[in-house]
């Protein structure tokens, strides 16, 4: 049942030129930044550092674009009503829709990440051959970690966007909700954390866990903790990986639950 819904979503993703365009833009930006920032020639970790902040901004935008009308379309066409007469539950519909779109989103991210990784592999630094060299703490595995975390992050934002698409009643309200969502995600939650921290609502000992409240901070913390700090060495802990993963999972599952509730309402 879910597979059927996934297939339908995938077809939609493939047939929507906007998604191909988004993939192309994301690829152009990622490759451009990695190339002109010199990260490609420097290695995997510098490239990760170069891409992290742009991705924090771009990935949510792309993920929201992939998801904010996913269920809304079915609702507006009356297909949700039709589907209610079929033996498929709202939960299955949400999960199927989400997974279908997520597969498309993963592909949209895989294209730029793969190209960048191949570019790093292909273009080494110009090292002076008389000296002994080693790769330091740099490793393709670190970049793969970054890629996996980016996909995880994108999948979380997509879930929130799918929830928006299930709640919204019209295209315009969905767009408005999506914009509000982006502002909250990109700025609002981090600002709230900053406020909470400075106002003393979030204590010194709990900040590292509280970071997981904001998907953006959770993602940033995970990337810094599992890739960048491996090369940069010791210091105050950057993030709590467990809390961050839990944070992202809660956002994902919670959003999908909201979407399912909105459909069955």
């Amino acid at each position, binding site marked *: 049942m879910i597979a059927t819904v996934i297939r339908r979503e995938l077809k939609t993703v493939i047939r929507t030129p906007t998604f191909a365009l988004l993939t192309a833009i994301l690829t152009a930006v990622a490759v451009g930044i990695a190339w002109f920032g010199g990260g490609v020639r420097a290695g995997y970790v510098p490239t990760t550092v170069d891409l992290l902040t742009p991705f924090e901004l771009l990935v949510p935008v792309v993920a929201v674009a992939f998801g904010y009308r996913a269920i809304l379309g079915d609702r507006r066409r009356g297909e949700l009503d039709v589907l209610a007469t079929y033996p498929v539950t709202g939960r299955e519909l949400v999960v199927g829709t989400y997974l279908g779109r997520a597969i498309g989103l993963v592909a949209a991210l895989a294209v730029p990440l793969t190209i960048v990784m191949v570019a790093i592999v292909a273009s080494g630094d110009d090292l*002076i051959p008389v*000296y002994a060299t080693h790769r330091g*703490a740099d490793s393709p595995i670190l970049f793969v970690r970054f890629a996996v975390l980016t996909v995880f992050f994108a999948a979380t934002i997509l879930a929130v966007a799918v929830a928006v698409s299930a709640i919204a009643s019209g295209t315009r309200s969905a767009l408005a909700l999506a914009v509000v969502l982006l502002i909250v995600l990109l700025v609002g939650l981090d600002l709230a954390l900053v406020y909470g921290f400075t106002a003393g609502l979030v204590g010194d000992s709990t900040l590292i866990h509280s970071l997981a409240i904001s998907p953006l901070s959770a993602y940033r913390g995970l990337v810094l903790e599992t890739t960048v700090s491996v090369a940069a*060495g010791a210091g105050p802990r950057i993030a709590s990986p467990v809390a961050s993963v839990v944070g992202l999972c809660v956002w994902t599952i919670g959003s999908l639950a909201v979407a399912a509730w909105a459909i069955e309402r």
Partner: protein
Amino acid sequence: MSARLRWGWTTVGFAVVSVALIGVFAIDIESSTHEQVDFDNTVSVGLSLEEQYELEDDVALPRAQVFYSQYDYVVGYYGVERFVEHRRQPGHDQRFGYPLTVLVSDYSSVDVALTSDGHPATDADPGWIDAEDAHYVVGSQATTPSGGTVVPFSERADADTFADDHGGTVLDWEEVLSERFDIDDAALVGERVSDDHRDADERTEEADTLLDRPVSIVVGENADTVQEAIDDAPAETTVVVPNGTYAERLEVDRPITLAGATDATIDGGGDGTVVNVTASDVAITGLEITGVGNETTGTDDAVAHDHGAPDDEDEGDEDWDEEFVDHYAGGNAAIATSGADGALIENVEVQTPANGIVLYRSDGAVVRNVSVEGHEIWQRGAAGVFALYDPVVIENSTLTDGRDAVYTHRANGAVIRNNELSDNRLGVHVMHTSDLLIADNQMDGQDNAGVYVMTGPERIALIGNEVRNASVGLTPGGTDSYVAENVLEANDVGLRTDATSSIYERNVIAGNGNGIESRELLPTNRVTENDFVGNRDHAMAIGGPIRIWTHDGVGNYWQGAVGLSDGETIDRPHSPTDPVEERLHMTDGTATLAQAPGLDVRSGLEGVAPGMRSGHVVDFEPSCEPRNPELLERTDWSEQAWACDERYPT
């Protein structure tokens, strides 16, 4: 395929992918170990080439090889203590990352004794051992040429035995890391400049007393020839040379003062060296010397040959450079001294197709107010003043048209100041000379470089020089150099930083093709408070990891750097190697482009993991206004050095 089977496969595939993805995070990247490499293939620090040559064959200095997380080359340290101190420097981690693996020499694997210099001598090459597993003897009599050194052993018992024999205490790695070691670094070199000047003043004052000797002979009155007068004059007296031209070649082998009148010329007739000085405390003043032979390289009557074998007091391969010295110092000269400790050569005018003045093993000799005019085609000339083996003072002299205006070879501690050096190939050519002070010289029109430091010496101070119209203004080399308050203008390259662990501060680098060309492999230099104005490219970096030219919150002034400012520093990093930012001072509109969010984000983050990013220079605290306005006034560029909050002057 049935739906059930398909689901089964899907589930299996999903599980495999999940495990792989989680596995990516489970792999422990940090614990990867590194195999030792041949130390000769490391980027090494802590020993100059000269010191290396002088070591006896069986000496094996304690060494460390370090694999950093963000540095592609393996770094080799002579002396574990040098690594410890190096690691303590601010910005070290930012540039290199942290050490993934440290290997140190293992003296348990060999028999070790100390030479009379305290250098560890062994019967074989010590092997390598992980630093964390070693036991260290700290504070023993063991030394490297730079001073006391830490000796590592894999076996605790060997360390105890060594400490019993040679003193010191046995520590483990963590304790060694928190020890403090005295290493002469560039900051000390800078602090020592005034001492060096004072020492040089004392030397010159002492030399001045040679001018107060009573006159014993006047050539033409008490003697027929100058040589006769020299031979007849009692020690510690003055031989006066009245006006006139004397066609003679002289040998001064007694401590006398040879004083020319207002217009006295010695003419060597174009064959060989004109004046040979072989005694200490000789003074030559007020002469014009012409007719120098045109041999620029060693021949049968080469100066070095006149003095037999090098003295054997010092141990080691003292004579490794004999052939070299025969070749280069063996050419003809207007005045050649050998063993003339404390000699003074003053107010001498020289015209020479070969060397001007050669100072060979003449400790404390002073050259002052001398003018040497070399061959108009420098390829056929030689050195204006050539100093070998001992510290000398060269000051207030005018040296033109030579191959090298001043050439030092193992003249550790020499002082070269207040000279005018023009139209030579090199202004000052430094070979195997450490602890050199090159100050307040005016250099113009050097074909190659104003100052070129070769062979990796240590602790050279380059201060207050002005270099113009050279191919390269200054090329400091080696380690722990102090380069400050120089004005480098209108050169193809202002400053080429081959030297590492060095300080480059308060220089004005204006109107050059490339302001700084950063070529060192180890990013250990401190580059602050310099003013970059009107260079085509303010800075470029060739190879090596990112350079961070900020120290203790102080950066440099970059003409054209943009950003908000509190009037002192600009709040946004400046990267003079960035393809857009490097043109900020040249191209209208770049200021807007450079502050585009996409580019801004990038430059802001480069500091997070910069080590592996090669060929870049970043200043995190660029200065709003020029740091050295007074020096800048001496260039044509002070008008162009607008503050960051001013508009481009039209």
